[in-house]
């Protein structure tokens, strides 16, 4: 059973993504409403995939990426899901080690296919 972590402070979005991913039978979906909760979950568990917003309370999505790559030293696939698609931000995200970048508004179907690819299903 795969474990997926979704970090976003937009409740409606998290609920939609959870619904979609569990419906596709990708695995168990955990949620974190802010960067601190995300960090705590990441420290205590091992996930197979992380989907994260950029602007969240406490720690940004980019900080989460750095945390996973440099502190936890894991290569868990990370998808950044952000309303902000400025070139500089996208470049920075990939540079820090994100595996994919999706801008909002996003298509749930597209997200699912990208998740599938990263999980090698």
């Amino acid at each position: 059973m795969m474990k997926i972590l979704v970090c976003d402070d937009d409740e409606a979005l998290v609920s939609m993504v959870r619904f979609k991913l569990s419906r596709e039978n990708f695995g168990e979906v955990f949620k974190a409403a802010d960067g601190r909760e995300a960090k705590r979950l990441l420290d205590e568990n091992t996930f197979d995939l992380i989907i994260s917003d950029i602007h969240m309370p406490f720690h940004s999505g980019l900080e989460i990426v750095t945390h996973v790559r440099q502190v936890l030293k894991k290569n868990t696939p990370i998808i950044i899901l952000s309303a902000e698609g400025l070139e500089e931000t996208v470049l920075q995200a990939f540079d820090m080690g994100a595996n994919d970048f999706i801008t909002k508004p996003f298509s749930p179907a597209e997200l699912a296919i990208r998740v599938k690819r990263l999980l090698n299903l």
Partner: protein
Amino acid sequence: MMYEQWVSAYGITAEEKVFIFIGMFFFIAAFLFITFILISRFTKNNRQQHEVALRNHFQRSLNAIIIMETTSAVPDSSYRFKIESLKNVMKQSSFARQVMANQLVALKKTISGSSSKILERIYIELDLHSYSIRKLKRGSWKMKAQGIRELTELNYTDAIHSIRNFLTANNKTLREETFLALVRLDQDKPLSFLDHYTGELTPWMRINIHYHLSKSDSRRIPDFSQWFTSSNLDVVLFSLSMARQLRQTSAVTKLPELLSHSDVRVVALTLETITELEAYDLADVVAEKTATFWNNEKISARLVRCLGRISYTHEHKQAILTYLDHPDYNVRFYAAKALYTLDDEARNMLQDFNRGMNGILSGIINHISEPLLQ
């Protein structure tokens, strides 16, 4: 009666009566406020709870509808059933309708593709579009604007004619809301209103319009250079910045004449646009302008930055070099940076100049060569 007796008993003068009256007046007013606050708080709390409950309920239904519709062939009856049950909730109150409309608008902002089409369909099937259209006929501008916003977010293009009427509304927010609605709903000419627009186009509108254009189909984006000659300065500035941001190379041929525009802001923005579009063809034209703008430090700073990006001959680099002893620090800084980043020849020219001037630019050169400051 009682009061008069009391007044006479204590020998209260007219002056004092006024004070007592004022005191009583404000005390009573204060207590009215308190009552109002308590009532408002009570209703607010109730409404909030009600709203949260409704929202959660709607979200669950919407999730199910959207995901089922896009994943596999789920029987139509299950979709119909869900819609009908939502309709029943809608019937109960306008409050429920508003919560649903807000929910759809919010979801529409995060979701695109086929799922977002389903949201549009739900909006119509729940008859919320006629609810929004009714808002356009309401007296308050806020209601009208809200109606426009809902119709636009849910892409109800049929409303475009009713919305267009508000282009000349008195209220600024309503007018801006209308522009944005047209930008988003008008499929053929989303920015046609610019042709005859005489009003102000604030940076705020620029941000909004750019946002919506960048999220929409690229075929809808017009060639902004058509408005470079507009008599409205705001329109010129707006279309220049759009051409720059959207990298419309078709604008390049029209840029040289804007360098002689009477307004310096247009000239500044034109130089930025040339920089951003990397219009090498215009390097000669820009280099010729150095004398004209030498005294304007803001234009000069932009000019050297522009040359730093598009120069390719020795003459161009020579033109940048003259700015190394410009009276303004910023201009010197950007001139040095332009030469430093251009190519080896230019970098050597900079170093030679600095040696010739006994290291006067060493501070700047150290700064621009610092990797952590890039």
